[in-house]
């Protein structure tokens, strides 16, 4: 596939190049919508298409006024602040609980392993609208079911900061579980035994031996959890109230009601964030592979 042998027939040549063109078109389909957003966000007009000035590369056609709007408009700033308040806390919650559980799951003898795994992964599989519906009902009136009837809890989570954080943490957990267990597959268990042999207690072993080695997996799980919360809109629409309006929520209402070009500026900023994230993950992946390559098998 990589290159054409010199004896290729004309038909093979045609197929080879047309296949490349088809693939190029598909890549174009994948990437163009994202790239097009970027110049459009610098539009000096309130239009969503390229103005003649922009096509002529006239500096008059470009401006940063939509970015200025984003950084001065109180609605957008509140949304940004809320997103930055919710996502990190949800991430910390899911990473700490998730890493612990992943370590437990990767031990050699775990009863009901498959069932537990299925429950822990389920937030990723269940459609968001269903999770949101369930959470909306349950969080507005949480209770503990007992065989004698339900004990209603004296607080409500709907419309509160902690309600949204809890919901987002639950949604991020499958990603942490998957990435950390994947890292742990390559972890050499004899290292912990060696540490114990030399007199380290389990806590020391965890922080000094195991943690540094699985850190790339934990961090990339954390990034997944962060982006899940940071991007999430369905659950926050249902569980949150106006006080928890996040960036995606603001974008969603913006797109549904009065579509303003500021959204394109926000989108461009978010694209930059995801490029950064992609880069970080790639570095982590390489580092993890190197570390694992070093450990004796």
């Amino acid at each position: 596939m990589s290159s054409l042998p010199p004896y290729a027939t004309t038909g093979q040549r045609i197929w080879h190049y047309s296949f490349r063109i088809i693939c190029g078109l598909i890549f174009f389909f994948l990437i163009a919508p994202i790239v097009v957003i970027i110049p459009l966000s610098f539009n000096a007009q309130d239009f969503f298409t390229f103005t003649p000035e922009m096509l002529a590369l006239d500096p008059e056609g470009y401006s940063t006024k939509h970015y200025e709007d984003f950084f001065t408009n109180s609605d957008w700033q509140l949304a940004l602040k809320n997103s930055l308040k919710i996502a990190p806390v949800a991430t910390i919650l899911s990473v700490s609980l998730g890493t612990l559980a992943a370590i437990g799951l990767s031990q050699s003898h775990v009863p009901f392993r498959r069932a537990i795994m299925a429950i822990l992964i389920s937030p990723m599989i269940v459609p968001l609208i269903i999770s949101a519906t369930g959470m909306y009902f349950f969080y507005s009136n949480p209770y503990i079911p007992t065989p004698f009837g339900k004990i209603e809890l004296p607080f409500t989570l709907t419309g509160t900061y902690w309600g949204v954080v809890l919901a987002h943490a639950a949604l991020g957990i499958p990603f942490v579980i998957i990435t950390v267990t994947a890292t742990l597959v390559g972890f050499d268990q004899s290292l912990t035994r060696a540490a114990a042999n030399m007199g380290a207690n389990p806590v020391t072993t965890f922080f000094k031996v195991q943690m540094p080695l699985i850190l790339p997996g934990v961090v990339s799980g954390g990034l997944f959890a962060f982006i899940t919360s940071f991007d999430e809109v369905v659950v926050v629409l249902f569980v949150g109230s106006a006080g928890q309006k996040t960036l995606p929520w603001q974008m969603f209402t913006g797109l549904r009601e009065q579509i303003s070009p500021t959204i394109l500026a926000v989108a461009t900023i978010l694209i930059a964030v995801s490029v950064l994230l992609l880069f970080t993950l790639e570095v982590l992946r390489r580092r993890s592979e190197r570390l694992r390559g070093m450990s004796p098998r």
Partner: protein
Amino acid sequence: MSDTTSGPVLAADGRPLKASLNRALRRQKLRALMLIAPLLIFILVSFVMPIADMLFRSVENQIVSETLPRTATLLPDWNGEGAPDDIVFEALARDLAVAVEAKAHTRLGSRLNYEQTGISSLFRKTGRGVDEIGETPQDVLEDTNDIWKERDTFGRLIGTSDWVDAINAWDAEDARSRGAAPEFDANPNFAEQFPGTTSLYASYVLQSVSEEDNPLGEKPWPILFHVLAQELPSATPPSDVPQELALALGEAAGALAGVTLDDPKAMFLDIDDDWGDTDVWTTIQTYAPAYTNGYFLNSIDMQKGLDGPEWRPENEQIYIVLFIRTMIMSLSIMGMCVLLGYPIAWLLANLPDRKANMLMILVLLPFWTSLLVRTSAWKVLLQQQGVINDVLVWIGIVADDGRLQLINNQTGTIIAMTHILLPFMILPLYSVMKTIPPSYLRAAKSLGATNWTAFWRVYFPQSVPGIGAGCILVFILSIGYYITPELVGGTKGVFISNRIAYHISSSLNWGLAAALGTILLAVVMGLYWMYDKIVGIDNVKLGG
């Protein structure tokens, strides 16, 4: 020598080795479970319980039996023809009097309105007129003896003196710091003779207390007089009520002897003819049990009829069409993803690593870009005055006045969602194709196969697991999508999830939303199970 081999093998501490190993294994299992437990509890509380709650709500229907308890117990005996007997209206009058005070009748009305339009306004209208029932005996009694004008008369008549003292003491405490009100305690002798009055007064007490008021200091409802007057002729007033009240009761029986009491049935029919309508009563009767399959029937375009489930009228059938549309659109998105994803995965799997990694970024960048960003991109691009139409006009494929309608319809949803879900197809396909040795294809060709045969007979069958994994993943994700169809789908391009959201936030028919959600969840869980069988949950990979 024989001594050492015959006994059980011992560990260093002298225990049998087998027991020692078992103990170690148990401790290991326990430790693993201890590590998992916090997360498992967290997920159970924050995620599994909400889902279970939703499943429960799809069959739960306690509102009728809670709001109209007296009517609900009588209705099973109704023959289903015309308006029920006086006794049912009598019960309804009492239930509604309680419900109106608690403002629960409007909620019940809107609940039953999902099943039959018009009931909501019927309940609202009736709620305004129901407090007139009982004014006739009230006037008569108040004229006979001033004691009937006292607000605490009913309480002292029906409740025990201990309860009267307790409730007065409770009322005297500071409302902010006091505990729960003492439970109502009726005089058993009185309750035996006047069961209806006692039960209604108990409801009255509950209502007053829930408003933090003293039931002895509130005006009694007129309907209490009505019920008392009804039960008086056939009852012998008990001897252990306070003397002045016993006297008043005796007088009352005489005074009411010639009075015609209010007729609830006539009054209800006077307020609205619909109370004589069989359909209204059928609806109330059908939904009186605490659990119902009505929401599920509703979500497959059926309803409860007189003789079991029946189809809804043709013009009210929307959900089956919507389910089918969701399926078809998810399938077309899945098909598009296979069509577009297969060549890309092939290319990535067969290029040298350096080039493949470079191109992989083009797949991963959309994967990592916010869903809202991609949706807004499509919303901007697909508009009639958007970039795609502009380019088409500029090339000359379409005329300026014939711009394509690409958004707010099914086309828009399919284009945008194919783009959004394509990485989920490419990544599993790629990881499967990476494991297919290229030498197989070369071997097939050297044995005389044409390019097409070699691909179709040798390569393609080996890539089928990847297609399966990708298809199920894309299908699961697309069938429950909400945001993108909502923004680019208009009215024709929306999914079942948009309907669920509509019922939760706009029509407030939560039971129906829960039933639709349950059906969707069942479909997804079935697919998830298939995915687990084919791919295994442990093998889910993220981002290559």
